């Protein structure tokens, strides 16, 4: 009896302490409100610091994309610190407002994602971002209904079309594959029909390279898709897949995978003595691949949207300085560059809206109307080609990729930005009808 009482007490103490957790969370909130109050007080004194401007973003710091998302997370943090260290954002009255990022690790669970979205909305976030299609897809209907601008970091064409208040400013996976095919065909000089093999990760990201639309597109370019292989995120062995590719006599390979997968594929290719052109889209991360399989990855091509790699553009220098200042030394990872490009654009949308709308009237809808729709030829100074968002611009975001290659122990740009083809046959839909919907939304 005594034991059970003790146990019960222990249980309640433990549960009680768990229930204390919200109190701790609330303490955090208190701090915020306290900050806000002090900020308000400071408002009255002419120190020029207003209430924070909030943007929100989710990351998946657990799960297969964790290492990429961590770099992106760091990029967001650094850039926001940079903005705040340089005086924050000015509103129409010339008062500066610090920038604040609300974020959460969604663990790739859609319910956390949705819950956070609602909380961010309630907390006054002006613009929201998520990193992958399955979460984005669930947020889009809600964002659309309330006209909250929603950024999807990387996505398949199918999820994001037609665009209304959701954006991906990076090219769609299908389009990147299309660009790779076109790019390869430029140097194809043999008389035979070129044969492509596709290796896809066994999840939504990977399998978007195997959709029927993109396969139709590739066929329309006169390329034969001879192998469609599906591999695990962290495979033990890809020999079987590669032998099939070898037997199918492929001429080039496209691997929609992440770095650990690429490392295994690279080693198995070396083992089986396969020497074909192989490329991957941005989530693969060539710098990570170089770390993991330095002896086998020579020649691997990355179709990147943005990145470092010994470029002397101002944007790249800026990122390097940012990393040196906040992280101690430049790490030069390509995911970081993507993160910077993304957060830059989000902040730019907020900044543009703040130029037009008085601070008190700022809302997600206003940011969408006066911010996003006014992003035209937004220059990230070389990180990305100029970005266009919004209704008037023919294209949403930017649709360029730039190939890099691992050469020995170096990663080098091997071509300039290439415009991606529109691989979706039904793309006409949002050029006409979709545009009408967007205009209608904008007109309200």
């Amino acid at each position, binding site marked *: 009896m005594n034991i059970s009482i003790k146990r019960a007490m222990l249980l309640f103490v433990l549960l009680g302490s768990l229930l204390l957790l919200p109190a701790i969370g609330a303490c955090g909130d208190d701090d915020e409100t306290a900050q806000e109050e002090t900020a308000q007080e400071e408002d009255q004194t002419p120190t020029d610091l207003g209430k924070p401007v909030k943007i929100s973003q989710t990351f998946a*710091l*657990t*799960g*297969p994309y*964790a*290492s990429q998302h*961590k770099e992106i997370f760091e990029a967001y943090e650094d850039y926001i610190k940079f903005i705040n260290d340089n005086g924050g954002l000015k509103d129409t009255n010339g008062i500066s407002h610090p920038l604040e990022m609300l974020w959460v690790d969604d663990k790739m669970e859609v319910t956390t994602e949705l819950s956070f979205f609602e909380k961010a909305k309630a907390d006054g976030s002006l613009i929201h971002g998520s990193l992958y299609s399955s979460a984005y897809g669930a947020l889009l209907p809600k964002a659309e209904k309330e006209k909250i601008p929603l950024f999807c970091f990387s996505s398949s064409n199918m999820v994001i079309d037609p665009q209304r208040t959701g954006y991906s400013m990076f090219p769609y996976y299908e389009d990147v594959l299309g660009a790779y095919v076109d790019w390869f065909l430029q140097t194809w000089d043999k008389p035979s029909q070129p044969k492509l093999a*596709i290796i*896809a990760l*066994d999840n939504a990201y990977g*399998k978007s390279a*195997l*959709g029927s639309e993109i396969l139709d597109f590739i066929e329309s370019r006169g390329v034969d898709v001879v192998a*469609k*292989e*599906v*591999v*695990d*995120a*962290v*495979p*033990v*062995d890809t*020999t*079987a*897949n590669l*032998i*099939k590719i070898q*037997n199918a006599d492929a001429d080039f390979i496209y691997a929609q995978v992440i*770095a*650990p997968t690429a*490392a*295994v594929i690279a*080693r*198995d290719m*070396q*083992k*089986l*003595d396969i020497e074909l052109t192989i490329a991957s889209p941005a989530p693969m991360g060539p710098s*990570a691949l170089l*770390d*993991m*399989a*330095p*002896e*086998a990855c020579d020649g691997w091509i990355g179709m990147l949207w943005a990145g470092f790699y010994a470029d002397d553009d101002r944007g790249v220098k800026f990122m390097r300085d940012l990393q040196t200042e906040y992280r101690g030394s430049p790490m030069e990872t390509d995911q970081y560059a993507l993160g910077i490009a993304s957060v830059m654009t989000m902040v730019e949308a907020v900044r543009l809206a703040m130029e037009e709308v008085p601070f008190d009237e700022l809302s997600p809808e206003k940011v969408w109307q006066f911010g996003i729709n006014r992003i035209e030829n937004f220059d990230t100074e070389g990180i990305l080609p100029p970005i266009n968002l919004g209704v008037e611009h023919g294209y949403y975001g930017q649709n360029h990729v730039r190939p890099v290659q691992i050469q020995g122990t170096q990663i080098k740009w091997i071509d300039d930005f290439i415009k991606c083809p529109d691989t979706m046959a039904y793309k006409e839909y949002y050029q006409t009808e979709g545009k009408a919907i967007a205009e209608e939304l904008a007109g309200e």
Partner: protein
Amino acid sequence: MDMFIQLLISGVLVGTVYGLIALGFVLVYKSSGILNLAQGELVMLGAYICYTGINVLHLNIALAFLFTFAVSGVMGIVISRVAIRPLVGQPLLSVIMMTIVLSIGLRGIAILAWGAETEGLSIFGHSYYHIAGAVVSEQSIWAFALSVLAVVAFALYFQKTKGGRAMRAVAEDQQAAQSVGIKIINVFDHSWLIAAVVGALGGILLASGSGVSIELSHLGLKVLPVVLIGGLDSIQGAIIGGVIVGIAENMAVGYLDPVVSDWGLVGGGLRNVFPYILALFILVVRPHGLFGQKRIERI
């Protein structure tokens, strides 16, 4: 034909590692009747510990292995004492949930300690050999050889030593084992220690190919079809089941993927699912796996 042999040989090489990991799984099941769904996490942690040994503590490979075994062994004992001992006599669901919960907790600890990043773990050479018409990498030969060595060492331990006999006794009849003075909880500790160590070895061997990451724990789930096929309580079943799954995976990719691809399943991708489907079929025919003992139940 060439492809067949290549697939067969790579299947056997990988399958042995699966068998090794499954061994730890079977051992815990036999001695304590607990389905260790955290085996995948033990595999993952083993790889991380070895990574720390090599890249942070700068140990040489032999020392790094010993370091890994020592740390994993201690971890196994701690798990056994903290999480498993209170479960004696609890219902099945509690036991299963405890190991699931344990697996989640271990993943949390790994993330806390190492972050969620992927690291390379290069401990074997990168040369390639042609054996019987197939190309095999040095890494997979090492993996095979070390797995076989570990399995043999373990089998000897299990058959010939006092500790091994105690484990077998507990596996057969816990109360009778207690009645001759065997301390059951010591045997639990023992079996978790071995499970953690063979898991860690499996982790190192797998990670030497695919790198160290949290996702390595998913490879632990591959053990489940292995033990379903081989039988939960059979050590030889674990090894043979491992090899069967290794081969089945490769054959599924090589020969079945194109078929199901034609049926409209995009790209096939049967590698992970096929062992489970195979296991389901085997279960329908033999509910206790190929080598599992049929338990006689009394009301």
